[in-house]
């Protein structure tokens, strides 16, 4: 049986890389006595799957790990035992049994919600206007750079929601994520503000992942809504 954990990663722990987060969970499960299943072979490892790596330096409230268990544990017991031996900056908030045939955390991610917090106010109307402008367009072609390649893509269809608060500090966006059509929130910000962005000390714009979503019946739903509590 497979369970899905939702966890947050905040504070100092944003500087821990993805591989180390995986190691952290392996040790956490052993400390908390979670009956995790191991793979076969001479060097068995825990059967685990995580949502795509969170960039170093970014906070998140919606990370997920799927783990195979050898026997069930009550969700509330597991959460309690995990909390007892966790660092506060990684807090597990749910522990839910997944349906039998269910894509793993890594593969199921189709979209992610981010919150962008600006260090100082950008006039409220400016920000709302930029968001509206963006949404009105039929296509927004940008240059997407990866380590090796550079290619032009249209990000407009990959942005599902874009909202600015009227105080001019926070932008919320729901954008495509995962193994296909993955885009970064920075790409959207650049397309919205262009050079104006440099007026802000870009290093101090805080981007936070709020949640990750998958497709069910053509609708985006939170990864957290797939499973059920073990009671």
């Amino acid at each position, binding site marked *: 049986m497979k369970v899905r954990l939702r966890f947050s990663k905040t*504070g100092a722990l944003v500087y821990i890389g993805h591989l180390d987060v995986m190691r952290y969970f392996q040790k956490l499960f052993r400390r908390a006595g979670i009956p995790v299943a191991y793979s076969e072979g001479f060097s068995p490892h825990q059967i685990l799957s995580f949502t795509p790596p969170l960039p170093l330096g970014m906070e998140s409230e919606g990370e997920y790990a799927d783990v195979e268990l050898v026997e069930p544990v009550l969700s*509330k017991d597991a959460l309690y035992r995990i*909390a007892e*031996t966790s660092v506060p900056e990684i807090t597990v*908030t749910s522990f839910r049994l997944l349906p039998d045939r269910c894509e793993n955390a890594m593969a199921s991610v189709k979209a992610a919600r981010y919150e962008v917090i600006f260090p100082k106010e950008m006039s409220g109307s400016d920000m709302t206007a930029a968001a509206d402008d963006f949404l009105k367009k039929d296509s927004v072609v940008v240059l997407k750079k990866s380590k090796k390649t550079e290619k032009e893509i249209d990000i407009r269809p990959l942005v599902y929601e874009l909202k600015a608060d009227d105080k001019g500090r926070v932008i919320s966006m729901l954008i495509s994520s995962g193994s296909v059509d993955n885009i970064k929130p920075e790409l959207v910000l650049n397309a919205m503000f262009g050079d104006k962005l440099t007026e802000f000390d870009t*290093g*101090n714009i805080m981007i936070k992942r709020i949640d990750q979503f998958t497709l069910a019946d053509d609708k985006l739903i939170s990864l957290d809504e797939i499973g059920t509590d073990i009671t």
Partner: protein
Amino acid sequence: MINREKTYVNTSFLMLLSIGMGKLALSKEILMSIDKPARYIGHEVNAVIKNPEGLIRFAMCFPDVYEIGMSHLGIQILYDMFNSYEDVWCERVYSPWNDLYPLMKKDHIPLFALESQDPVSDFDFLGITLQYEMCYTNILQVLDLSGIAFYAKDRCENDPIVIAGGPCTYNPEPVAEFFDLVYIGEGETSYRKLIDLYKEHKKVGYDRQKFIREAGKIPGIYAPSCYDVSYNEDGTIREFFPLYDDMPAVIEKEIVTELSDTYYPVKPVVPYIKATQDRVVLEIQRGCIRGCRFCQAGSVYRPIRERDVEKLESFARQMIASTGHEEISLSSLSSSDYPDLDRLCNFLIDEFSDKHINISLPSLRVDAFSLDVMSKVQDVKKSVITFAPEAGSQRMRNVINKGLTDEDILNGCKQAFLGGWTRVKLYFMLGLPYETVEDMEGIAKLSNEIAKLYYDTIPKEKRVGKVNIVSSTSFFVPKPFTPFQWAKMATMDEFRMKAKVVNDAMKRQLNYKSIRYNWHAADVSVLEGVFARGDRKLSKVLVRAYEKGCMFDAWTESFRFEPWVEAFEEEGIDPAFYYNRERPLDEVLPWDFIDIGVTRKFLEREYENAKQQKVTPNCRMKCSGCGAARFHGGVCYESKA
């Protein structure tokens, strides 16, 4: 919908918040621009957080990078001990790596402790452990970044008291002037007295120098500023003497008599990034019965003392539960000499092997027992059989009193080959006293014989590829408090020649293709040799080398020899005086004021025995009256077989 009410939060979080913690000493910009920022953020599982109000703050520094420092058991023991004191908060400090160091210098960011992220300069004590000579420039980096003067005499009233500990303090003289105090011996015994004295002095108008002087009277604690040295014309020491009548002329090492009744870190800190030792470590015993003549640890930790096996079993359970580590390992100089090894190994196998916890058993003698155990805990095909013959010939092994014969090695290998092992690692030393070309060539011959043994033992159809033999030589560095403390160390050219002799001999061997030969760098060994037996005159060389950018000298990638050569030249100091010189037996040695229990007379006798190639029996076979019996514990009080 998602029910957020069920979120449980660890209570230490509330503690952190209540004292305004969670802050980081380094900015986001810096943390994002350096390698492995997790080295500097603290916040690990089992890190101890206290409310600092009214506590004595102790910064415990391992002057190397986090992954190395975090792997050290001794520091974990002291961290546990200090934090078990209600009136002390002990935190960890490591050397900022090469990428962070210039950023801290440029922005004047003070060095900080991991737990509170507070500057080291705010602490009451800065303890620095000296594990190897090649970390000496890192001491200066730590002081520099902390804003603390290099020389103890230049420090301000409110600077932390800088205290050294660890194995290199058995000759602290090259770094003595950088320290207010030096703790000589095992840390578990005298620190409580030091903290109490400090609190007393703080109560009644604290005067730094007065405190240091009083602290220098606590057993095992040496206050370098209360001593002076005079020299003969040839640079050797005329006299080492206390400046005040009430200071002890000799400092006796501290030692834990009953190892089973002392501190053990059952909740060690769990790093996020992979430390060099990412596992639970059980220290099964301290000291060694063997008396190898090159080995400083075997001498200064005398007599051997064991930990009770039942306690170890309980530690093992507690530590696996508190860390979640997936590996457990034993620590000692020679695990095969632990009397309850059978029971302990069986316990580990029974308890942990079906819980997906790996068991690693280093420093085991290769014999039927250990091979049987190893085949149960590791993949034979992947694991390596390790021997440390140290010398290539029996003659030479008698010189160094290494009680391992060719026969032992070959028998061990034969059994291992039959058991399915195909990889053998051999460790040797070059440049040992009285070494001949034959002894060096012996290294190649022995390697070849082992390879041949494999082909003779395992029939062709059962072989899986070639046997794989890796022979490594390090260069011998004479150390204080060993019978070779008077010996002349070879020069760099001599070392290179010796390595060439071995390498050439290797090429002549029939099974050359199955053997790989590695040797260490000669320049680092020579520096190590200088500082190991150095005196106070060397501190200025260290300062100069640091100013020239020398740091992390134990790391091949950052070690540069030229600045060192310049530093010696500029200070007018000839390194050969320290390493490439046979010392007469009547010379005053810089470390003569330390009493480790083992007497000078015993060491002299052993030096003579080495010359005669005479073997001295180990402590369990027969007591040789080394002097360590005066500690009233350990093997000296066992009945001999």
